[in-house]
């Protein structure tokens, strides 16, 4: 974990309100899937860094990608950063996801999909099947990137304007009966975790989720990004930034 100055190589819109940024570092250490980085915004009125999952990385070229939706003031500032500009970036943060099984189902909901490519890159030799869902055709991202890495990619849209019509959770559940994955990793909004819990309950397949929470320090000191988990010693708060962001869905209190 290090605080460093990096150079923006690329920062362009790739879908409706969604941007992709590539950042180059002088050196880059081992990155696990579902780890994140924390960017200091080039705007002194913003005192908090912005955490983003590492969408993908390239060890050889020492680059990391961030795929983000412009939703607030922070991401608006970020979208204004030009190629060639420097950014102060902290990475890699969080526990990350290291699959134990060999056949992994990846499920992404909306921008949660951005967690998935790095999981595949970090785990060569394993068989990944990606199921990604979006509101409509205009919001679809990372289909091509995942297609190049995964054994299969299935896209679903809520309104049916692209790929299969319906929620990705339903599509993935049906496919799981045929695919029989060893493990599942899900990243998306909380409502999706509730749906996943319902439809995979009793399946016996371990389901991991990558959580999101507003963060302060990003390194585990300030305790603002907590989420509630239920473990052998009872219910309690854990830090999304340090103990997570990846947790077993079974232990997360939704």
């Amino acid at each position: 974990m290090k605080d460093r100055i990096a150079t923006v190589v690329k920062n362009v819109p790739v879908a409706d309100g969604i941007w992709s940024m590539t950042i180059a570092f002088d050196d880059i250490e081992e990155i696990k899937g579902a780890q994140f980085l924390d960017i200091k915004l080039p705007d002194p009125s913003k005192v908090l860094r912005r955490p983003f999952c590492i969408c993908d990385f390239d060890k050889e070229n020492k680059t990391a990608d961030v795929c983000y939706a412009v939703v607030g003031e922070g991401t608006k500032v970020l979208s204004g950063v030009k190629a060639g500009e420097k950014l102060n970036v902290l990475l890699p943060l969080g526990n990350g996801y290291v699959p134990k099984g060999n056949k992994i189902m990846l499920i992404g909901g909306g921008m949660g999909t951005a967690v998935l490519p790095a999981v595949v890159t970090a785990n060569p030799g394993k068989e990944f099947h990606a199921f990604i869902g979006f509101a409509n055709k205009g919001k679809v991202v990372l289909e091509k990137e995942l297609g190049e890495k995964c054994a299969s990619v299935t896209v679903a849209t809520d309104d049916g304007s692209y790929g299969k019509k319906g929620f990705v959770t339903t599509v993935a559940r049906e496919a799981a009966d045929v695919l029989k994955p060893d493990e599942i990793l899900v990243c998306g909004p909380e409502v999706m975790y509730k749906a996943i819990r319902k439809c995979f309950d009793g399946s016996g397949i371990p389901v991991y989720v990558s959580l999101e929470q507003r963060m302060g320090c990003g390194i585990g000191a300030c305790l603002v990004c907590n989420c509630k988990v239920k473990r052998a010693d009872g219910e309690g708060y854990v830090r999304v930034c340090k103990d997570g962001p990846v947790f077993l869905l079974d232990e997360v209190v939704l």
Partner: protein
Amino acid sequence: MSNLKVNIAGVEFKNPIITASGTFGFGKEYGEFYPLSALGGICTKGLTLKKREGNPPPRVAETYGGMLNSVGLQNPGIEHYLAEDDKRLAKEDVVVIANIAGSTLDDYIAIGERINDSNADMVELNISCPNVKQGGMAFGVLPKNVEEVTRAVKNVCRKPVITKLSPNVSCIADNARAAEAGGADAVSLINTLSGMAVNYKTRRPVLANNNGGLSGPCVKPVALKMVWECFNAVKIPIIGLGGITKYTDVLEFMICGARAVQVGTANFTDPTAAYDIARDLEKYVEENGMDINDLVGTLILN
């Protein structure tokens, strides 16, 4: 001969930079970025007798030039601190200030007594956390309560006691006087300002707790004025905090009467902020061949 050392209540700090309670955990995470010995001191996360879960998330909201937090004193409890963190911190060449909090006067007395068994060099009395429903704020508002809780802890605690003052009061100088009357060895100020962030789309506060404590560069002018007011009210040393992000901020606080300072929110913006400020301050003092203590309270009013 330049000098960066300061002395608060008989405790020597190698420089006046201390990390503020609640922004630095127990030093473990930031210790991965730089040696804690580069700082004058560190303030621990607020400790209570029993483990506290804190408030539900979201617990943070960014605001213009600052942020609101509503952590609500989540901490593992004093016994966990004594078993897990105290010895590790004692090995570090840095002044350790244990921040303690309670909900009742009896809580403060019990934890003020228990902290004697720690290796902490000093104790900071948190009587002004705005995120705790019972106690907390109540003790920090009225001067008579500030005096009462300070005296109660001083009666049992063998370590120098710093009373941390809330800015959400009618006259902070009165509260500084009350802390001094209660036997405080020093005061630190300001704790966060009570505030709220609102989402116009949902018409709801951003924080699950609705209200939170405002910190960051936006509060600095308020803090500077309050430090100056307290400097003119008490003889005990003052530790100033509120929005410090660079070494010139430290100089301003010391000119207003602070003998040392705490760096809080800046740790979030830059994990090495406190370290960088200490190094920059050292360079400034060397270049000017000055004793940093000579700055304290030298404000010239217009």
